[in-house]
């Protein structure tokens, strides 16, 4: 295991797994959003590591990571609005509230 690229990718996979755990185990929408942010960070780390340590175009990799950050910001904005709407409608931000109509 003396390969730096594989070590960085393993750290990225760990971030993905932590985010998946939070996404499934958390009860509130905000806790699930924290899990999604962890997963997106793992994606950015994986992209930058792959671009910096292989013959790939490094500019493309770093710009890809910046685009992931922009998407994360947009997604956090939307989730904040959805959390506000759910909170107004159901009284709290628990994730099982909006599923009351599923039958």
């Amino acid at each position, binding site marked *: 295991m003396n390969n730096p690229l594989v070590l960085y990718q393993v750290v990225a996979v760990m971030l993905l797994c932590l985010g998946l755990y939070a996404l499934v185990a958390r009860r509130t929408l905000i806790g699930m959003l*924290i899990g999604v942010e962890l997963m997106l960070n793992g994606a*950015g780390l994986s992209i*930058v590591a792959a671009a*910096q340590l292989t013959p790939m175009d490094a500019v493309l990799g*770093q710009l890809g990571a910046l685009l992931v950050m922009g998407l994360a910001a*947009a997604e956090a*904005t939307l989730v904040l*609005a959805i959390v506000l709407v759910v909170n107004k409608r159901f009284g709290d*931000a628990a994730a099982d509230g909006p599923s009351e109509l599923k039958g």
Partner: protein
Amino acid sequence: MNEMYLGQFAFAFYTLIVLAGGGLAVSAASLVRAMLGLVVALFGVAGLYLLLLADFVALMQILIYVGAVTVLIFFAIMLTRAAADGGEAEGPGAGGILRAIPAFLVPAGILVPLLAVYGATGFPTPKNVSPAQLGAGLLGPYTLAFELISVVLLAAMAGAVILAFEKREPR
């Protein structure tokens, strides 16, 4: 050779920070503590970016994630009063943990052995890219992505305003 060991030590240190912060973000009962764990993990990822010689991305990580996204999530926590008496207080429960463990074990079980066996070999030292080259890339071959991300941000913000807008029509 000495710098090599220093780099390995820094990698281990930042990985430890990322894992500790991520563990706190995943396991804390209070959402504010989970947010603090997320901030620690984000700083650790910024350190890993610095180790990869992607210093502009590390700066943007601190500026966008730690500066903006975290404040946004803190606003969500405050506006929903989720800190003290929210639904996270009693923890995930046995059923939640039972569902969550296979949810992360399956991707980890697939990805990590694949990485260990078929992992691509990389350079031992990363490449250096100046911010000027990044700017030239944004205005040159990757202009479309640059414009698209701005449109996506505008649409997301307009949608957020419309969603959260309180109707004042008397009925």
